[in-house]
């Protein structure tokens, strides 16, 4: 009985939790109906693949969620991903482990640097997040083409194989995602920075008057978003085994979509990481389903857009119902 009461309380404290469950239900529905439809879909090989394919989007979306909860937005993660694959392809072609390690280090340093620039621009130069990150994004598009004019370069094959190692249904990208999820989860729910993120997302002046170091907290969110984009960049580079200066372009908007579908409010101050992961998997899985059903690429965009609108409408309605329920 006590446990039931605890669960009930948890739901009352976070109304988004029920929306996360809805999305998970939707995921399972899509998955089961596909399993029923196609013999090849049921295979362990395919399921492992699908899960591994969804991981890069989920990783970058985790960082995006932190930024959105803090009341900002990061449009530059897509370009950061592109540049990261380009850097990786330039530096990680050699056979020596030292070279690979150097490549990984440079990628993360670069990604964190981009986040730092975004954070400083937003918090110290007082440029709105949308504009700051749009500018860095545009600059990074140029940087990516400068490093790698066309898709190419090389990733150390051993490293790439290691990153995509599979054990039955579990794959390395999935493991990395879980680790990243646990780390961001700890940060958001169990540290001062996490509480600070929710606080500044709701109201910066109040948070400041209560002693939250608003600028430092916000900068951290952008740096983490950069780092998450770095992880995604490495995953993509290892999957393609080459660099591609434009491969990240869709990830900026998709990461925002994952967060919103997962119940994070673009107004800031509320959101759950588990919802974001579920949202990313829903987008990834539906894309995969459409590929299998050989549906034109064109419809995939339509699908993504419609999904987003549907999510927004559902949250807006359930939010209003919640208000009414509390009132009465």
């Amino acid at each position: 009985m006590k446990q039931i009461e605890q669960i009930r309380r948890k739901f009352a404290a976070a109304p988004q939790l029920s929306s996360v469950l809805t999305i998970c239900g939707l995921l399972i529905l899509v998955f089961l109906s596909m399993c029923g439809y196609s013999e090849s879909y049921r295979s362990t090989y395919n399921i492992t693949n699908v899960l591994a394919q969804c991981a890069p989007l989920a990783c970058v979306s985790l960082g995006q969620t932190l930024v959105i909860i803090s009341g900002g937005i990061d449009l530059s993660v897509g370009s950061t991903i592109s540049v990261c694959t380009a850097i990786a392809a330039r530096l990680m072609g050699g056979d020596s482990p030292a070279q690979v390690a150097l490549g990984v280090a440079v990628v993360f340093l670069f990604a964190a640097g981009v986040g730092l620039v975004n954070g400083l621009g937003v918090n110290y130069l007082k440029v709105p997040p949308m504009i700051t990150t749009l500018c860095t994004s545009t600059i990074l598009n140029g940087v990516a083409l400068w490093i790698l004019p066309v898709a190419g370069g090389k990733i150390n094959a051993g490293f790439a194989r290691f990153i995509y190692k599979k054990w039955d249904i579990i794959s390395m990208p999935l493991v990395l995602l879980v680790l990243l999820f646990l780390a961001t989860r700890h940060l958001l729910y169990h540290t001062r920075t996490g509480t600070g993120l929710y606080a500044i997302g709701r109201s910066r002046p109040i948070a400041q008057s209560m002693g939250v170091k608003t600028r430092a907290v916000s900068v951290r969110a952008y740096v983490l978003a950069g780092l998450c984009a770095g992880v995604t960049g490495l995953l993509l580079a290892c999957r393609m085994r080459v660099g591609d200066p434009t491969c990240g372009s869709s990830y900026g908007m998709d990461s925002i979509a994952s967060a919103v579908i997962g119940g994070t409010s673009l107004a800031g101050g509320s959101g759950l990481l588990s919802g974001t992961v579920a949202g990313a998997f829903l987008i990834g899985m539906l894309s995969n389903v459409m590929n299998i059903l050989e549906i034109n690429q064109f419809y995939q965009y339509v699908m993504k857009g419609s999904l987003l609108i549907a999510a927004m409408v559902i949250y807006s309605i359930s939010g209003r119902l919640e208000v009414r329920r509390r009132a009465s």
Partner: protein
Amino acid sequence: MEYEYLQLLHITKKFPGVTALDDVSVSVRQGEIHALVGENGAGKSTLMNILGGNLQPDQGEIRLDGQSVRITSPIDAFQKGIGFVHQESNLLENLSVYENVFLGRERVGALGRTRRREMCQEILSSSQRLGYALEPEKPVSELNLAQRQSVEITRALLGKPRILILDEPTAALAEDEVERLFKIVRGLRQEGVSILYISHRLDEIIELADRVTVLKDGKLAGVLEREELDKDKLVRMMVGRVIQDIYPDRSQVQPGRELLKVDQLTIPGRLDQVSFTLRAGEIVGLGGLEGQGQRTVARAVFGDLRFTQGQITVENAVLKSGGIAERIRGGVAYVTHDRRGEGLVPHQSIRKNGSLATLERLSNSIGWMREGRERREIQEHMDSLQIKASSMEQLASHLSGGNQQKVMLTRWLMIHPKVLIIDEPTKGIDIGARMSIYQIIHQLTQAGIGILMLTSDMVELIGLSDRTLIFYEGRIVRELARDEVTEERIMKAASGITEG
């Protein structure tokens, strides 16, 4: 106990168009309850905001424990041992109670992990000691005003303050909650904490305070020791003039035909069968503690809230549930209490702010503004309301509070209203401008407009209303005519006590 722990010396603070504080000195002894009283706009809040680090004084000195200090921010004030319980809740609704209480100074363990259990335990024990029950893990959005205040007090006490500022702490409390607050305040005095208590409820202050500093129009009007406390004396010091001089004489007012009729209006959980009427040339005041349904009624009448039960009639025409545009066409206007938030467009001119509700009438069939007509009408209102500005192109944000309020009135008078709802007519406005606004309201009623007034200022409610309706928990619990209204009767009714 005679040691003056806090001294504010010769503080002066000017805002554009108004001197909020003029050479004010206050000293607070250790372990005393020091009340700060004054009318709205007397400078109490400005003084407290300076002490709380929200504002910097233009001149003057603050001494804590004999040391001259500068209080640069709210968190700086907190670290210097000044706790502040705000009048309007200063909490983050998306966080839980314990997160709000400990925000900015969370207890952390290894790996930066916050110690949730320890924090909750601390809140439980401290709130039990103070005699109220807080659920540390409940989201603040689910708490009522009294509970939110306890959260703020718990938060303020966490810093082991030497001085605790309570800004209008009883404005939103019912009578038993007030008693509990008093007990807490007295307990803190025992522990040697100095309390700065701001209120305009004189009975409370006489019951509670050891010493009273009276402010009037931004200046120090005097300091009274406990044994000198006397209500009449306080009123004289605060007001400096008799009430009759401030408020227009409305004893001869004869209300005309019925303009507005609210019948059995019910919104589940917010309003319960509210019925009243408003006649031409009449001022009906809606009073009570904060958030008891006054504003909900006003919003419903203005079409900003939907209702399913009951009926609102303006001049015998039944109004639909929602729709502000329809109300404006029907001659209902609402002057908001939140000038900055939902009233004025600050970076637009007086002219554009003034014509905002009448764009349809002031434009031709393809949507072009008839600017000549617009200018002429705005100019007329600026003259008749005596708005002080360099021209009608001056930005609204550059006006004083009183003139901003008059711009708001201009906007709504442009629609030629029959029913004018004014929510907090003189919030944050100095005394000169207040008297001018009272005069305007009086003249409007003489022109046959019916006025519904919401105010948290009891003196204003008594001084201006022809009839006063007191709300409690979404119901009208008492109706008082001009000749039977007293502060005591209002307070009793507002706390839900029925009189025999």
